[in-house]
């Protein structure tokens, strides 16, 4: 009986739910059925269900619940007034039938034009493609003008381009690398109207054999041209004159097998062309293993100067770039450029002659890469006429060969500078990559470097310790150094599923000899050697746009040169990166810990002495511990123009000399010594926000150093040994250093269309464009030092610079015409102010003012 009741109860429930609940009816107008009317059943903000009337005006709505007490039935049609019917539990009987009469009427339809319709970009893997027409208005002249409007791309004042915060390494045009690292020649001069789209390729790996195994660290841009410009000459001719001149001519022709770009630019607007050349790096060894002679103790103070002299102001560049295929297999690309510059010079000029040719010999396509030979070179001559003697020759040549699963690259870089401070640098690199399978690759790298340099330091107004000869105060010191270094590394890369694994063994060896030659002929020579071995492992997991990288390394370093000694220390780093299409979010943690304990015997001969020879020996067992850790958070949302970086780095040092024995001549002493202990914490926070008309960039770096030292002997020990020598002094010292940097940059840009003759599509307009830029940078450093002898020695120093830039352009822009007319007013002021003083009444100040001035120019631009 109990079960029968239960079954009956369930059946009743099913019957209740199984009832055919609906609202149906007919929509009519003027007693005729109205088709294509929308009937919506709404509760609150939610549309519960809807129906569209058929040709007989009938509709039916089924999906509604009796738990909701009130519904709204909304009926709309494009030619009727909207009708709303309230339905409640009483009017909803389960099978509701309605006849709805509509009144004729019109629906207000405002016309809409969405300027930014379309995202304008798409992302596929590591490639983000931007449709240029979505971001430009036709008034852009050169490629840089277009790039500056693409979200995520930022152009620094020196023309260097970065995408999503990472500096790009090259800009290719239709996949052809005409300008190599000197891409700024192209971006500042090549006409922009031929550009169809821009591809930004992240994680690009220059080694094709590592594709799909490792992520490269290069970001490159590829400029895609409009198809209708293929095989036609296009370019830009610009002439502007008034107080000064700004002229340019660019012509380019792109065909499938031949590419040509020729350009000339000359100006007196202060824009430099010498900086467009990115000299290839000629140092391959890590900075930690290169030595410098310890003459920092004789830092010359700034000498007060009068206001800067009037500077010259003209800059010219001429460049030809050619690319093409002479057969279906072989291709070539490169450019030859000449730059003449006097801008910023008091006298004379600077010339640069550069050539970057490349030849590619493609033999066939293989499993993982192309079977190809590439011959690359770079030549550069820098001639500074201001001093006539300074000539720099730079040569870079490389040959690479990829065959089936093996690739080899051999490159040499050489540089010589002939002047009164000559310099020579030679570096070679051999890299062999072997790809075992689709998932594994091995890379062997061998590098060697030879450096030779001479530097001359004149007229020291300071005091060099260890020197008692007053003559040295105004003497000349010549510093000569030559060094040899080698670097050997073996890497194994593997990819399995979402994991990329790398293990590396490397060794770096540097030997340096340097000589100091003071004016009074005494020569001091030292030999320093260093060897660093490293074993590191890295694994990266990628889950879509989220990646997690962990790296651990063990470093072993041996050196005979103070302060580098034997060190064995681990280091680790963990990076969490989330990289959706519009943003980059980083979380980085890292740390290192170094420790050292050893017994050292120094027979120290001071580098500079007077004619008396002082020989001093020190035997000291000492220990050294260093630990550091850091946290970095970076958020970059390039579509919204938000860039935030915050970091916190902590460093602690503790070192001590357990007991020091010194002997000089016949005396020897032993005393305990402690310290110093150094703790260093730095924080960094920067935020920038870019709005359509106003860009604000504010950056603040603040850090504090606390350095406490106790060394020498303690008072009890001192009382026992006080008779030995007055030279042994206990010292207690504490210092605090608080550097504070503040940067504010604001750019206000306004563009107003004064006459708009055709609102519907392209604009024929007269534009008024103003651009005001103001930059203010201030560095403030507070230093408090307390020691046993100088009880309180607070110092502060600051330097600041500010620059303002005003530019107003009145421009007639007609996209139907190839002519642009503009009147330009400009005022540029750069001021750098460096007062530098201490509380001990030593006041020194250096002031440099460079006013580039005001000018009015009128010009025409012809686009073809």
């Amino acid at each position, binding site marked *: 009986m109990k079960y029968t009741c239960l079954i009956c109860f369930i059946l009743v429930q099913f019957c209740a739910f199984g009832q055919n609940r609906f609202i149906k009816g007919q929509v009519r107008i003027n007693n005729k059925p109205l088709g294509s009317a929308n009937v919506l059943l709404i509760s609150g903000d939610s549309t519960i269900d809807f129906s569209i009337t058929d040709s007989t005006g009938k509709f039916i709505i089924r999906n509604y619940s009796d738990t909701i007490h009130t519904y709204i039935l909304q009926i709309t049609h494009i030619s009727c007034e909207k009708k709303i019917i309230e339905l409640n539990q009483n009017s909803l009987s389960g099978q509701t039938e309605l006849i709805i009469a509509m009144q004729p009427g019109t629906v207000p339809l405002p016309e809409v034009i969405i300027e930014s319709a*379309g995202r304008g970009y798409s992302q596929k893997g590591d490639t983000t493609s931007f449709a240029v027409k979505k971001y430009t208005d036709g008034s852009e002249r050169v490629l840089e003008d277009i790039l500056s409007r693409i979200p995520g791309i930022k152009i620094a004042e020196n023309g260097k381009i970065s995408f999503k915060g990472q500096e790009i390494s090259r800009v290719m045009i239709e996949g052809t690398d005409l300008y190599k690292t000197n891409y700024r020649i192209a971006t500042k001069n090549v006409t922009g109207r031929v550009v169809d789209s821009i591809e930004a390729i992240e994680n690009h790996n220059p080694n094709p054999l590592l594709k799909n195994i490792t992520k490269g660290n290069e970001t490159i841009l590829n400029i895609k041209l409009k198809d209708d410009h293929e095989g036609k000459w296009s370019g830009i001719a610009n002439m502007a004159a008034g107080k000064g001149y700004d002229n340019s001519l660019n012509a380019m022709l792109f065909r499938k097998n031949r590419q040509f770009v020729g350009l000339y630019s000359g100006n007196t607007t202060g824009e430099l062309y010498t900086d467009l050349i990115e000299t290839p790096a000629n140092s391959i060894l890590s900075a930690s293993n290169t030595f410098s002679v310890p003459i920092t103790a004789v830092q010359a103070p700034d000498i007060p100067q009068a206001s800067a002299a009037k500077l010259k102001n003209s800059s010219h560049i001429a460049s030809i770039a050619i690319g093409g295929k002479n057969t279906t297999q072989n291709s070539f690309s490169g450019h030859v450029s000449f730059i003449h510059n006097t801008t910023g010079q008091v006298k004379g000029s600077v010339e640069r002659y550069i050539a970057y040719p490349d030849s590619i010999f493609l033999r066939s396509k293989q499993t993982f890469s192309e079977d190809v030979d590439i011959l690359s070179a770079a030549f550069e001559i820098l001639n500074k006429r201001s001093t006539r003697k300074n000539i720099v020759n730079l040569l870079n040549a490389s040959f690479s060969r990829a065959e089936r699963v093996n690739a080899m690259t051999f490159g040499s870089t050489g540089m010589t500078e002939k002047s009164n401070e000559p310099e020579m640098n030679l570096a070679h690199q051999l890299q062999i990559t072997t790809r075992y399978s689709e998932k594994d690759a091995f890379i062997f790298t061998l590098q060697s470097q030879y450096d030779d340099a001479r530097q001359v330091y004149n007229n020291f107004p300071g005091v060099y310790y260890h020197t008692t000869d007053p003559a040295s105060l105004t003497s000349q010191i010549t510093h000569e150094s030559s060094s040899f270094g080698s670097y050997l590394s073996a890497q194994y890369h593997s990819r399995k599923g979402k994991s990329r694994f790398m293990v590396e063994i490397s060794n770096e060896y540097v030997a340096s000899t340097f000589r100091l030659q003071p004016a009074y002929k005494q020569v001091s020579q030292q030999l320093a050697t260093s060897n660093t071995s490293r074993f590191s492992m890295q694994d990266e997991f990628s889950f879509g746009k989220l990646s997690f990288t962990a790296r651990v390394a063990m470093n072993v370093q041996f050196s005979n040169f103070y302060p580098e000694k034997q060190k064995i220390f681990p280091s680790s780093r963990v990076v969490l990166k989330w990289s959706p299409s519009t943003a980059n979010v980083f979380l980085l943690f890292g740390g290192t810990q170094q420790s050292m304990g050893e017994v050292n015997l120094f027979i120290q001969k001071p580098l500079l002495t007077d004619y008396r020879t002082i020989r001093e020996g020190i035997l000291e067992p000492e220990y050294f511990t260093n630990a550091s850790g850091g946290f970095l958070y970076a958020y970059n949302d390039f579509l919204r123009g938000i860039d935030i970086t915050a970091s916190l780095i902590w460093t602690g040092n503790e070192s001590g000399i357990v007991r020091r024995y010194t002997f000089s001549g016949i005396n020897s002493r032993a005393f305990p010594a402690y310290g110093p202990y150094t703790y260093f914490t730095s924080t960094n926070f920067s935020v920038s926000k870019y709005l359509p008309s106003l860009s604000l960039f504010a950056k603040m770096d603040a850090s504090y150093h606390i350095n406490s030292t106790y060394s020498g002997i303690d008072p009890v020990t001192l009382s026992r040994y006080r008779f030995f020598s007055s030279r042994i002094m206990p010292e207690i010292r504490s210092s605090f250093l608080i550097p504070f940097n503040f940067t504010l940059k604001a750019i206000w840009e306004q563009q107003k269309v004064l006459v708009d003759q055709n609102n519907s599509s392209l604009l024929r307009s007269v534009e008024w464009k103003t651009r005001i830029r103001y930059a203010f940078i201030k560095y403030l450093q507070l230093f408090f030092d307390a020691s046993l002898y100088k009880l309180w020695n607070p110092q502060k120093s600051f330097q600041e610079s500010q620059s303002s830039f005003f530019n107003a352009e009145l421009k007639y822009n007609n996209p139907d015409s190839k002519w642009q007319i503009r009147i330009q007013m400009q005022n540029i002021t750069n001021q750098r102010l460096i007062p530098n003083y201490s509380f001990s009444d030593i006041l020194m100040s250096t002031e440099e003012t460079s006013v580039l001035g005001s000018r009015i120019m009128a010009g025409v631009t012809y686009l073809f």
Partner: protein
Amino acid sequence: MKPLLLLSLLIASGEAWTQTLEITYLQRVSFTGKKTNYDTGDLKISGNYSLYSLRLAPKEKTKAENADFLIDLSGGMQFQSLLNMVTDERQTRDYVFTKPYLIKEKDIRLAWIITTEKKKIGGYLATRATTEFRGRKYECWFTADIPLNTGPWKLSGLPGLILEANDVENEIGFQLIKIRTHPADSRLEINAAGILKTITWDEFRTLYNQKLISLKKLLYAKSGGADYETIANIIPNTIEKTLFQ
């Protein structure tokens, strides 16, 4: 007589609603590994009819114009789709590779799920709705302020005009550029509809797949010993994934 009837049907008179409307969309197609194509699509609405015409980007036209001896038999490879919003009948000018056909379809109402998410597009309040159509999942934003049951391409059947649409794989996208209430040309006409062969969707699929197989065979014959399995597995990129049998 038959062509005349067809023409009279295609040139809609707009009895119920005399006003005309032209909505322009940006159509984005970015298949994996391919260049992203941005084209413009015009949706003209008059009476009970709406006509979506794809305007290929100018570069495509320029190529054709530049060729001295090119005789354009395809009508500019123009995709067009005419919808009767009352009867839900759709006629589409589409291509089996380069040959145009007129495809007639009936009762193609999509099953929409309307969500509570809302956003403003061009001043209109739009509501998010999702559906699945021929192998792709779409999310669309429609506005009930314009009570027309149509939208770009073949997306329709919501209680308001579709202003924006994207497939979840982000390969296909339609975005509103402008709405004009008094377009210069208000005729709704499929190009050369009278001379096109009229077929059903199933016939179109069959023809497409037959042509695809013959093209693969041609490719295999020309490849000089390529793996046939590799060629046989090639599936062209199309908006309608269920086109392939």
